[in-house]
């Protein structure tokens, strides 16, 4: 579904990604883990079209998307939920959801109101607080809002950047449960996480980034068989 090939991305003179290649197959959850500054977020922002790669290729469902504008990429069916949630704080919850309508307007195919109902069933708080400014929601509620907002664009590939950051463990469980549900429904997910244990458990495959390069990749079993990986990333937790 998604093929990233030898991707190089630089912020000014600092190279953030050096020859990163990853593959995401349809209906998988792929986790990308690594320390702060390893290049995880840069990878997602580049796939989404916000950063332009210096070299390398990104292919989505058979066509090149690198170098395209973010709005064009989102219309092709890729949605990014960035770190820090990025709700439109002064807009109401309902207006935040309305922002996703851009994609529908272009495709002109979906029944918007039906989609809105489905999202409200999954995240009841979005219906309850439809007319509150999004900035007044709690962190967990905001996370539900941004995932719901991304889902309204009916993406085939959902990119999530640190969805667990700053949330209580109970709330994080809820978020991850939703991701598992989405996989059942046919959505492919790329999950960037510092909470490595949770992400690796959920994911079909995991990539570990270090200093802008893929250091290890594989299924949970494959990774856990490598003692260096386990000691570095699971430490006492395992």
């Amino acid at each position, binding site marked *: 579904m998604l093929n990233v090939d030898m991707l190089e991305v630089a912020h000014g003179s600092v190279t953030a990604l050096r020859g990163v290649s990853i593959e995401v197959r349809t209906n998988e959850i792929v986790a990308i883990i690594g320390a702060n500054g390893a290049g995880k977020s840069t990878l997602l922002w580049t796939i*989404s079209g*916000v950063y332009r790669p210096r070299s390398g290729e990104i292919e989505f469902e058979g066509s090149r998307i690198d170098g395209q*504008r*973010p*709005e064009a990429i*989102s*219309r092709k069916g890729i*949605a*990014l939920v*960035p770190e820090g949630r*990025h709700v*439109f*704080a*002064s*807009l109401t919850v309902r*207006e*935040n959801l*309305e*922002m*996703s*309508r*851009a*994609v529908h*307007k*272009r495709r002109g195919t979906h029944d918007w109101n039906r989609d809105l109902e489905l999202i409200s069933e999954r995240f009841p708080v979005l219906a309850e607080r439809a007319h509150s400014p999004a900035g007044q929601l709690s962190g967990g509620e905001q996370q539900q809002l941004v995932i719901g*907002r*991304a889902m309204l*664009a009916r993406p085939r590939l959902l990119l999530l950047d640190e969805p667990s950051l700053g949330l209580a463990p109970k709330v994080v469980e809820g978020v991850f449960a939703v991701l598992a549900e989405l996989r059942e429904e046919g959505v492919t997910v790329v999950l960037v996480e510092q909470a490595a244990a949770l992400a690796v458990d959920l994911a079909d495959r995991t990539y570990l980034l270090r200093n802008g390069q893929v250091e290890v990749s594989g299924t949970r079993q494959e990774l856990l068989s490598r003692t260096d990986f386990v000691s570095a990333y699971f430490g006492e937790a395992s």
Partner: protein
Amino acid sequence: MTQHVVDALSAGSLDALLALGIALVFGVMHLVNFAHGELIMVGSYVILSFAGLPWPITVLLAVFSVAGTALLMERVAFRPVRHASPTTMLVTSFAVSILLQSLAVIVAGRRPKGTSFGAGLSRPVVIAGTRVALVDIVSIAVAAVLVGLLVLFLKRTWTGVAMRGAAEDFTMARLLGVDANLVIAAAFIMSGVLAAAAAVLLVAQTGTVSPTMGLQPVLIGFVATVIGGIGTLAGAAVGGFVLGVVTVVLQEALPLSTRGYRDAFVFGFVILVLLVRPGGLFGSRALEERV
């Protein structure tokens, strides 16, 4: 007394329109468009040229030509530098401003020209037993209607909601599929409509048109957005209104000998406001955090 109140409200209304025109574009592009004054100038020359037609047609011509000029300005001058530094965009706006002024000098000459457009509005009407100028009442009404329509647009239409979202977090809006070009073009068109309205009111009030007539209004509009808290539309409207009212109040309240220094007092007031609230009356947190 009634006349003074109407004067103040009228000046406040006009300044609010100026400030909103600047704030709309600033919201989505983070550009202080100093060529906004030249949009007013273009509108004024259109009014001058077609003053002989029935007034609704003259006004419509002004609105369409100014909105068109604004759109063209965005497409030709600002879109190519959209990703450049704010300084580059600011310098571009000065260049566009000077270019349009020079074009006006070449086409229409340097000297101010008079027009009888809106002369009928200078007659007084009697309100509550006092005579007030009709043009002031019209200014207040026009501003109220336009602000009302703008609020409706921003709250009730999808493009309006997308503009507010984009003003808050442009990248996130694009990630959700909102077309950057659409949002920015919409902001320029609306800013053009507000500039055309300001042109109609200015020409009706003063009866003169000149290539440099946009300089004073754009400065007032800019200062008003800063007082209100740059980046918020409500702040711009209130900032403009307050600035206009303060100007008129000082005009009336200052002793005759110091009245010539009115603007010094006006800007003294501006400095005072910013000393107390550096982010402006409706200051955004983003600005305060940066200080």
